[in-house]
């Protein structure tokens, strides 16, 4: 396994990326104008501040999704090797799913699943 070409590629890609960015940073003439730096809203004057409030419910839904998605991900290798692990493997996944079900009961009762 030859590693030097990997190092060469890393250096080359870093150089190309920094060259492209650095070129626009150093060579471009900067003449900021009121119109140029304002927020873009399809050509209209900006109605409001572009920084809107972020509903934390979206973040909560994303976190819950990632937890249960990873639970399903863990079921995939289990499903492939269930024959070889037998009854012990079955009870292991039952325990794992049971623990995550407890977490599900907790978040349900806490109202994390109620949208509004």
């Amino acid at each position: 396994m030859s590693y030097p070409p990997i190092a060469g590629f890393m250096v080359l890609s870093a150089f190309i990326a920094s060259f492209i960015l650095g070129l626009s940073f150093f060579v471009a003439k900067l003449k900021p104008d009121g119109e140029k730096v304002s927020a873009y809203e399809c050509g209209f004057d900006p109605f409001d501040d572009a920084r809107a409030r972020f509903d934390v419910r979206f973040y909560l839904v994303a976190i819950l999704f990632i937890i249960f998605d990873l639970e399903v991900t863990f079921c995939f290798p289990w499903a492939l090797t269930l024959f070889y692990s037998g009854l012990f493997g079955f009870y292991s996944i039952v325990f794992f799913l049971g623990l995550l079900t407890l977490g599900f009961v907790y978040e349900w009762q806490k109202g994390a699943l109620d949208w509004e």
Partner: protein
Amino acid sequence: MFPFSVHSRFSYFSFFSNDLVSLLPEIFLVCCICLFLVHGVVFSKTGRILSTNVANLSILALVFVCILLCCSPGGNYLAAYSCFFEDDFIRIIKVFLLLTCIFCVTLSLFYIQLEKSNTFEYSVLLLISLFGIIAVLGANDFLSLYLGLELQALSFYTLAANVRVSEFATEAGLKYFVIGAVASGFYLFGASLLYGFTGCVRFSDFSLLLSHIAPAEVEGIFLAFFIFFSSFLFKVGAVPFHAWVPDVYEGTSLNVTAIFALLPKLALFGVITRLLFCYFFSLFDVWQFPFVLCAVFSFVWGSLAALGQGRIKRLLAYGGISHSGYLLFGVCSGTVYGAQGVVIYLLSYILSGVTIFCSLVGLRFSRVRYIADFAGLSLFSPGVAFAIAASLLSAAGIPPVVGFFGKLSIFLSALAGSLYVGALFGVLCSVISTFYYLRILRTIFFENGSRPLGAFFSFFGSYFSKELSFLVGFCAVLLFWIPINPRILFFISFYSSIGLIG
């Protein structure tokens, strides 16, 4: 007749009945955690506040786990396909952990009632972190130690930000999270390098490998070992990695500070001692000098930085850094006296820590945040003043209190391990740290408070619940009683250190 018989052609591993018996305390703890979580969340739907209920239940659960642990079959054994290991040393440290956790839940119970913090999840998170800590302590495998470490760390990040309305707590939680994540990254990097260079995943394999091959022949193992170990130094708060300790200890609420100060040090010094003495002892001449440097800088830094502190929690945090330094110094001696000294010092540290934190909880209404706020305490509450005096004298290491035996054992073991200069620095820093502990005592006993007597809003004095006052009294008296009859201390430490070596 166990239902785990395997019928397939291949049986990679099974869960034997020995594993069930040996892991019974941990299994019981997990069942209790699940039960309390569901109980808390289902029964608080009706608007009931279950924080004290679940806290009392968790004390009960911890007492039962302790009983189960004491009834475990003795000897050394590997459990669960060599993922977990238990011997006398680990069992004794687990008993210390459980007792400390019971004390911490008792003090948080009262604190929860005072502060009207109505989340029952606090106790459940504490139990989950305790389970993670026990998993760290008994791990025989890189991955099982990492799982326990992460479980403990994640619960601690959440506990640090327990007071949701306080920016200090949020900041402390965030700082602890970022720094702890970096520490876990170091752990994984070091562990993967160690596995890559040696092919061993279990710790017991390391001792076998390194006793047959000279460590210098395994390329890269020194670097991997130091990266791996720096994660433990992070979590414990030793010197190159101590920056998070004062801010996190000060920002969190008092009950959580008590947990942070007491529980991780116990388990992590158990793990550090076990790893360094049992598994990586072949690398002794490589790790002794850098860890001695860490230890010396820890207690020098802890002693010097605490001199200028005016706030009590920050001062205790820097004191905690210097205690980590002394404990690491005892481990670095490489002798069995070092392991014995670590156990004695841990016991004295826990007793003094529990006493001081319980006293601070009892003084909650008096708004003691700065050292100057202690003035006149001996007139208003002589009992609390006595307890604080006992605790701080033990932390300083002054003779009629248990802390003296801890420091004595550590320094004698260092001399036995030929660490003369380090021991000299240790004694000097001990004297320096005595100054700021005695300054607090001077403020308590010899300064007149400027608080008006009888004014409506100036309640000064202590306010304890029955259990908390019993706990404070018990620990304070124990701090003075054990030196009168230290056989139990020496027996426990000797038994555990022999269990470590043998």
